[in-house]
């Protein structure tokens, strides 16, 4: 059996957690108080030692990302929380924001101290209006208790947070597109270098981290890197939020140690496939992640094990499909997403994905030919590696995996 480990989700179902005294009563802000006695550099080292890796999808080691900031500070530094979650299958960050907003705010305050940031932003997807309001209230409360504002905890440390709602563009979850959007522009990814740590928001050094990444920081500050590393795997410590959706008995967000087995999570946490059906396939990390067949799901859910299985952990959004699922239909829904969300800057992404969409539609409407199926694979090969941000690749490779793993379903549609 597998056991849930509640570090980020322990206040789910508890009301009033946006109030400071409720949060403090359960150990809140101890982390900040402890770490603020040391130098910012000390905590950056602690986070490096903790093996905390970014939870936004790429798994970049957080302490090392912070280490890219310039040593000299002759401009403001900014800290950005990426709360744009919008990839089909992903609904985890909202759990922290809805049920434990001060955990995120304390985490950002800790990160701000460590990265010497002057101002923080939470960029939340526009549809989550009520969650933005929860965050605003929690920020107000933190300000009133001087956990935000000037001279926090009596130290020479000023920090505040602004909340901005996006407006329905998934690509704004890509960190440089997010920065463009924060600047009031179209959300198109930037060419890198320069990386945000050198020139991000308003051209100033900027750190972007995911909600869940920030959520881990109070624990690390309070209990130390050593304790954090007791959870998870050697290469990726801590817990992970896994969102399970699709054909399962108990869909929802579950928190397990990083590296928990995918099959066990589907079977035990989510109660297995519903209506007594058999499993056909699962997508492990949001629809960008290449699909796995039923006999491929016996894997550890961490960054490296997923790569070894030719897929990715991504956001940890697990989509489960039963035996009656039509994979070509799933492919169609997926390509609709990528075409809709392509920002249009790169021709291979914009035109290539649209062409794949047309060809898939031909197939599912029974008008497709063998050449069309071949063309989809060829176009997806040509998109891969030829775009400015990973969205183009994600679209191409996720469709390619569906065709390669379930060729008979696509062939059955040929005319």
């Amino acid at each position, binding site marked *: 059996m597998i056991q849930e480990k509640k570090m980020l989700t322990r206040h789910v179902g508890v009301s009033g957690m946006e109030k400071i005294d409720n949060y403090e009563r359960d150990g809140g802000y101890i982390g900040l108080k402890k770490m603020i006695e040391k130098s910012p550099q000390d905590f950056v080292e602690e986070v490096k030692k903790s093996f905390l890796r970014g939870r936004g999808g790429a798994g970049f080691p957080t302490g090392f990302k912070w280490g890219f900031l310039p040593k000299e500070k002759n401009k403001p530094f900014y800290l950005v929380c990426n709360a744009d979650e919008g990839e*089909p299958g992903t609904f985890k960050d*909202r759990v922290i924001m809805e049920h434990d907003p001060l955990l995120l705010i304390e985490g950002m305050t800790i990160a701000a101290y460590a990265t010497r940031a002057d101002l923080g932003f939470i960029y939340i997807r526009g549809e989550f209006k009520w969650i933005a309001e929860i965050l605003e209230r929690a920020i107000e409360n933190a300000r009133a208790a001087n956990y935000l504002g000037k001279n926090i905890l009596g130290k020479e440390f000023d920090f505040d947070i602004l909340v901005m709602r996006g407006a*329905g563009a998934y690509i704004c979850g890509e960190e440089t597109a997010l920065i463009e*959007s924060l600047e009031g522009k179209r*959300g198109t990814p930037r060419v890198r270098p320069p990386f945000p740590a050198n020139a991000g928001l308003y051209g100033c050094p900027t750190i972007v981290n995911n909600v869940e990444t920030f959520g881990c920081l109070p624990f690390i500050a309070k209990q130390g890197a050593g304790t954090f590393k007791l959870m998870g795997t050697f290469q990726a410590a801590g817990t992970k939020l896994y969102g399970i959706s699709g054909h399962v008995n108990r*869909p929802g967000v579950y928190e397990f140690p990083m590296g928990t087995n995918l099959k066990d999570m589907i079977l035990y946490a989510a109660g297995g496939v519903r209506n007594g059906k058999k499993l056909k396939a699962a997508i492990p990390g949001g629809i960008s992640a290449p699909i796995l067949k039923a006999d491929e799901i016996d894997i550890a859910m961490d960054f490296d094990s997923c790569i070894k299985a030719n897929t990715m952990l991504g956001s940890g959004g697990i989509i489960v499909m039963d035996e009656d699922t039509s994979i070509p239909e799933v492919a169609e829904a997926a390509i609709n997403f990528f075409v809709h969300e392509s920002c249009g800057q790169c021709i291979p992404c914009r035109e290539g994905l649209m062409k794949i969409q047309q060809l898939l539609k031909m197939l599912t409407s029974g008008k497709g030919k063998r050449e069309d199926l071949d063309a989809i694979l060829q176009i997806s090969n040509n998109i891969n590696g030829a775009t400015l941000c990973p969205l183009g690749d994600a679209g191409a490779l996720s469709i390619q995996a569906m065709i390669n793993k379930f060729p008979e379903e696509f062939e059955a549609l040929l005319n």
Partner: protein
Amino acid sequence: MSASPSPYLAEESEFNLSEDVVTKITEMAAVFPQRNSALIPALHLIQDQFGWVPPPAIKQLAQLLKTTPNKIYGVLTFYTMFNLKPVGKYHIQVCRNVSCSLLGAKHIIEHLSKKLKIQPGETTKDNKFTLSLVECLGACGTAPVMMINDTYYENLDAKKVDGILKSLQ
């Protein structure tokens, strides 16, 4: 859609930003390190007031943020949440992406279409309902999902949809 007379020909004064909205936009422009960052939040406020983003309001916003209407259009058209034309009193946005479609989003959409007698993208004659399809609302664990104005409705089935529509009559 034939909301008459055309909103584009309406008296500009019909689309004056409310005092409250002007104050909020001015405040935001001062809070952000750069004024331009207030643009997207300001567009949300404008849409809250009118249900869409009418051209005369864009002119006023351009003045407030010391930019040009063209620049605002460039940004506005990138973001799908902003309505470029009026929508019904209730804007129904149904998710049709993977997790929702596995659990019957298609039936929900067909059911809504039949009940409201409109296709996705259309508005009912009485301007009460607009039906749109969207790609993932970030509520995949409670699929199928739709959003009506600012509110989420989850774990939908036809019966639940009927009840919701009734409550909005």
